[in-house]
């Protein structure tokens, strides 16, 4: 089997695994729609008070909310993707089996996570987004080009999101327990991805800082590309640079970890 086909099979496995939980998917759609509704009303009140906050008009703010709900599970913003299983395998020592596979550890987990992300987007993300588009005025492009650019940013966002969580998971080689790391992932993910407020609307120097952190690649960049608020090329470069840097850091940490790997359990 060619290595491309191997990783495609791993990705398909990730997709199918999440597709099994049908009721959970429906429940997730419901939850994201409810949270979307709450956020939309607060944002409308906020933009009522401060029109053009962060350079967005009201329709753009609404679009941002529903895009966030669409990508919340897709990009595992608060964690809960492949890194959860990876942490468990490191903790129990089952990681030793993975290291013996004739496949690249990082690519293997990336493929599985991409499959998961694709399912979460189709199964869980699209419906709340469509709900928002039907019941609220949104700022969506009518030509093909921005949508095509948007798909590219989504792909890059998925890789950046994975790369961050992969780094976090590898830390379990040293920490032995993922609880604290998971909390950090959750806090940083929710806050710096702009789930609380678009990063554009963060004030002052603090705003300047959060907009160059890797989390900005996850919701802010796809949103700005979709709504034509940024040059797509600039967004691609920003996302790809973070993806490469974080994946490389993951490789370094991975080889350091496997050199000192102590298999737990017996």
């Amino acid at each position, binding site marked *: 089997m060619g290595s491309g086909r191997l990783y495609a099979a791993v990705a398909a496995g990730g997709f199918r695994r999440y597709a099994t*939980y*049908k*009721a*959970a998917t*429906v*429940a*997730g759609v*419901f*939850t994201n729609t*409810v*949270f979307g*509704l*709450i956020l939309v*009303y*607060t944002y*409308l*009140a*906020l933009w009522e*008070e*401060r029109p053009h*906050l962060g350079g967005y008009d009201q329709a753009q703010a609404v679009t941002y909310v529903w895009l966030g709900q669409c990508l919340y599970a897709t990009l595992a913003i608060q964690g809960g993707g492949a890194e959860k299983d990876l942490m468990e395998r490191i903790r129990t020592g089952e990681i030793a089996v993975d290291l013996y596979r004739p496949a690249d550890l990082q690519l293997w987990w990336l493929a599985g996570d991409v499959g998961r992300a694709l399912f979460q987007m189709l199964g869980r993300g699209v419906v709340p987004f469509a709900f928002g588009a039907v019941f609220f005025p949104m700022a969506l492009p009518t030509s093909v080009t921005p949508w095509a650019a948007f798909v590219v940013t989504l792909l890059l966002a998925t890789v950046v999101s994975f790369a961050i969580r992969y780094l976090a998971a590898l830390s379990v080689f040293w920490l032995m*327990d993922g*609880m*604290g790391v998971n*909390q*950090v992932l*959750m*806090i940083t993910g*929710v*806050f710096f991805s702009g789930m*609380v*407020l678009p990063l554009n*609307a*963060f*004030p002052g120097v603090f705003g300047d800082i959060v907009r160059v952190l890797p989390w900005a690649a996850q919701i802010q960049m796809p949103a700005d590309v979709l709504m034509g608020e940024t040059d797509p090329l600039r967004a691609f470069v920003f996302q790809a640079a973070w993806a490469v840097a974080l994946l490389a850091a993951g490789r370094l940490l991975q080889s350091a970890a496997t050199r000192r790997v102590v298999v737990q359990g017996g």
Partner: protein
Amino acid sequence: MGERSVLLEGLRAYRLIAGMWVRSSMTYRTSFVVTVFGNLMVTGLDFVGILLMFSQVDSLGGWTLPEIAFLYGLSVTAFGIADLVLGSMDVLGARMRDGSFDILLVRPAPVLAQVGADRFALRRLGRITQGAVVLAWALASVDVDWSAPKALLVPVMVVSGAAIFSAVFVAGAAFQIFAQDAAEVQNAFTYGGTTLLQYPPTVFGKDLVRGVTFMLPLAFVNWVPAAYVLGRPYPIELPPWTAFASPLVAVACCALAGVAWRVGLRSYRSTGS
């Protein structure tokens, strides 16, 4: 057994199980302290979000920051208490899938007490602490002409609110018996509910406010009584006495949730594995 002794039995079982979990979490003290702190941070993010919004505006839906902090503190503290007492309810679906729910049914203790105390986590004190701190700040900085009824209403809101949220947890658990894989629906009402109540009712559409007042009466956790305390008109017409109706609403919610729980338990079919 009479109703009273069932209740006492339940409380005793709850205390024993919860005590066991507390002792177990205290085995690793550092880990415990870290998770309490982490919990405090996670829940505090919502308020940081509100602070960020107020770095850009002076009011939201016509309400000032101390007024919204008042709503926030009430909602989070009440929810935090319910979450501490019954927060493990959302693992019910998983327990039914792996068959361990059956074990609870044959044990000689009320099932609700066993499920509620399951994995009792003192780290959830983090949320209560965070809510209480914001509430204290709000009480100190909000511009209110305090009277005895208004002052008395604050603790009444926290207790009734905790009871209303507890009822939502129990009703959600009953729902999970029917829809075994749908714990997230419960999250929409519990976490969604507390998030909704952190913002003033004027922010939301009238239909949503009506729904949260009359259908799923979360508005009585804080919106309705807090509007009275702050001297703000409630966005929909309500008779003045409703400002003091929270305890009644709480009792009614708990009774309904209790009925739902019994119906759920009676209709439970084991997975058989």
